[in-house]
């Protein structure tokens, strides 16, 4: 990140562009936009060194609303565009805004490969479990049986779980948050901003027009304490209104237990976001409502060299070994002869 302190400290609103925001009133995208701006201010990002890249979808309008550099590309390709930006100029901070359709349906392959290469990008997936912009078809994250315009009898596709997919590709940073929990979202985004490598954040986002209440279980006052569990590094998984429930491992399977009685905090599963192997993160990614509380927070955060660092390392090494390329030498490669 380019966080050198500049003379003037920017605030969230300095990251807003002059464009009218065209999301539906009540859309969860507004909150995400706001928290991103706050986090940029917190980490002291420079507008000129920050680039937002998106695909197509409601969520992908994101770059227009930022006063940084921005690229509203084509459907599904934002991670690849962003990779080009980052490799061409590794000094830039590059963010990707994508949707569940954009990022996981048409864009699934770029998602996979960008993550496995560990290009230093922040990927925010606005998961509203629906295609918003095209007015309400089911998406790869819509639940089985979901009735939508294109599935009047209910969907027959098992959904993908974005975090499981990311971990399948061995993401170095994976996290989840939710539009309405603005403090948590801000915290998670800040963690992502500070991660060096691909940081993937799934954000549950309400589309109040085509899939309203999709995440009600995780947001409503009545249920949210029982349907979500907040991950903290080194801490046991405890949840519930009175913090009386916990997650324990039974072999390779998580189970919900009541604290008190025989069961102590120490018996619970302790979160370790820094485990070298992503198996724990994978296991956590499998906890779904209604069987389990859904984990929120950072599933995994490990360091490994980024793609662009390794690539530029080779460039630098080549320059050190052979000197900065001279065209004479390039042309003279191989056998030459002289005609007089």
């Amino acid at each position, binding site marked *: 990140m380019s966080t050198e302190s500049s003379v003037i400290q920017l605030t969230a609103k300095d990251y807003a562009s002059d464009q009218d925001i065209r999301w539906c009133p009540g859309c969860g995208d507004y909150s995400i936009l706001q928290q991103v701006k706050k986090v940029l201010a917190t980490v002291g990002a420079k507008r000129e060194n920050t680039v937002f*890249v998106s695909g197509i979808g409601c969520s992908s309008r994101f770059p227009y609303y*930022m006063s940084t550099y921005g*690229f509203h590309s084509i459907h599904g390709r934002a991670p690849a565009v962003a990779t080009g930006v980052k490799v061409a100029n590794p000094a830039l901070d590059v963010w990707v805004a994508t949707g569940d359709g954009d990022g996981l349906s048409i864009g699934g392959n770029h998602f996979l490969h960008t993550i496995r290469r560990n290009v230093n990008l922040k990927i925010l997936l606005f998961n509203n479990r629906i295609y918003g912009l095209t007015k309400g078809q089911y998406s790869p994250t819509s639940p089985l049986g979901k009735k939508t315009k294109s599935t009047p009898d209910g969907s027959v596709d098992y959904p993908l779980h974005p975090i499981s997919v990311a971990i399948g590709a061995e993401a170095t940073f994976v996290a989840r948050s939710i539009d309405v929990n603005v403090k948590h979202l801000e915290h998670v985004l800040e963690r992502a901003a500070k991660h060096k490598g691909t940081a993937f954040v799934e954000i549950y986002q309400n589309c109040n027009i085509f899939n309203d209440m999709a995440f009600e279980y995780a947001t409503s006052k009545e249920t949210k304490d029982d349907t979500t569990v907040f991950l903290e590094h080194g801490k046991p998984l405890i949840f519930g209104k009175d913090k009386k429930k916990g997650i324990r491992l039974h072999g390779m399977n998580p189970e919900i237990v009541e604290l008190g009685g025989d069961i102590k905090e120490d018996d619970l599963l302790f979160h370790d976001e820094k485990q070298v192997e992503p198996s724990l993160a994978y296991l956590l990614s499998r906890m779904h409502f209604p069987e389990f509380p859904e984990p929120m927070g950072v599933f995994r955060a490990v360091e490994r060299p980024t793609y662009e660092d390794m690539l530029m390392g080779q460039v630098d090494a080549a320059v050190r070994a052979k000197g900065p390329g001279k065209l004479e030498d390039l042309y003279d490669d191989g056998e030459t002869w*002289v005609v007089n």
Partner: protein
Amino acid sequence: MVVSIEPPVTKTKPTPVVEREEITVRFAGDSGDGMQLVGTQMTNTSAMFGNDVSTFPDFPAEIRAPAGTLAGVSGYQLNFGARKLRTAGDTVNALIAMNPAALKTNVEDLEQGGILVINDDAFNPTNLQKAGYKENPLENGSLERYQLFRIPMEKLTAEACKDTGLTARNIARCKNFYSLGLVYWLYGKSLEPTERWLQDKFGKKADVLSANLKALRAGYYFGETTDMFSVRYLVPAAKIAPGRYRKVTGNEALAMGLITAARLANKPLFYGSYPITPASDILHELSRHKNFDVRTFQAEDEIAAITSVIGASFAGALAVTGTSGPGVALKQEAIALAIMTELPLVIVNVQRGGPSTGLPTKTEQADLHQAIWGRNGEAPCCVLAASTPADCFHMAMEAFRIAVQYMTPVFLLSDGYLANGAEPWLIPDPSKLDKFVVKHPTTHNDTDHFLPYKRNPDLVREWAIPGTPGLEHRVGGLEKRDITGDVCYEPDNHDHMIRLRRQKIDNIAKTVPPLEIYGNTNGGELLVLGWGSTYGPITSAVERCRSKGLDVSSAHLRYLDPMPQNSGEILKKFRRVLIPEMNLGQLRAHIRATFLIDAIGMNKVQGKPFTINEIETQIGSLLHQQNGRKS
């Protein structure tokens, strides 16, 4: 190291030597036989001694089909001459066939009376059967039309190398050098460059080096000794511009052109690509030159390749993607994004036989329509085509020059023939190359604003890049309001922008060199119009016809969209226009639509280039008809 071999028994009288203007030799054998290697050696040797050369390898589509099968045959054709050569030769004067399969797939290209050198040892029943021969063609008179030389190359190689300490199997591998030695003798070539090359290559493996050297010399001395051959041929040095030369394939030249542009502009070169025949070698070549700040990205697919290139261009790199036709198909959606965002980048298409997977290792030029017209919406971009392997160097630089000067994606079309074919290249002096200055704005272009779609008189917007304070802006694929670049759905703005994008591309013509006539600059009876790799056979055919006094000229389009400003004018100077193409008439349709000229098509879609002779014949018959009609 010292390699000794029996000095040749001197012949009763030396073989007479005949001079020739040019000679075409083809080495053909199994993929494992090292034919590309010896072909390359002979090319270098010929070039170093002053011949002009032009070559074309013919790889099998399979990696390594079972030894001895037709599918596994690999060939290398070399044309060397005492004059300017533009093709690898129409018909083969001498064919070296290392096994029955190689004979079968190649003998038809050998001229009547041509020299046919056979590795006799390979003509055993198994190999004959693998090649689908019912009986031995060497013995049933079927090769009567040729001068047949049956030489037990494997035995003779084994004999020559017996003291090298190599295993029999490894010795057998040297037979290609045996055949090369013999051919060197036949054409009076010096062994020295190849000996030097062998020293460099195998200096550390004394046994391998010695065996190859022995095989080479044994082949040469076999020629000296035997009475088999009644003449040797000599091709004198060509008149060639003085200077330092090397051999380049189109792909090498193209890669060097890209690096050169980036170097001259003092920019990183970003190459995003997904491997595909016959374009992959550009990726391989570029990835070897990281010290030129070349950043190669082997993407997960062609879509990621082009979109990463768009991102890199946005961020300020000289960015290019390379592929072949099927890859271009996948990139078209993104190319339109680059058109909309008005970002500079280059798309190289090394064309191959289509449609679909088609003939992936063969050449064709059937992607012109795809380049000009193959996108949704009105999506104009600039289309260039290289004409010879060495021209790929120049056109790669041109592509970048236009891309940056006009903020547009530029297609550069090459093809399998140019990509793998080779010719000598006069090494340029880098300090004498045109300057290439790329400018990025650093200040507002309006009162305290930056307007990303504000344009110069040529309608070109500025290339402001991330990292520049104060010029923050957003681009994207939705229609833009002119000047501000804001998203805009207004009818009139859309119409305006649609026409503006076309006009901007048309403006490129101002900077394109005029189309030149080879022949009668005042016009005449027939113009042969070409584009891409047909340059060689067309120009040579017209040259031949003109030397016979025919009223024919030629012109070659390296700029296809927009075409040079004088194109229509030139075409109209001729009564008829003939367009030979390795497709069903794609340039022809473009010319007809643009100029309403009833151009005549000459179409060959066989995965291989035109021969000079084919075009010559066609010109002849057109002019003959003409005369016939006139009288």
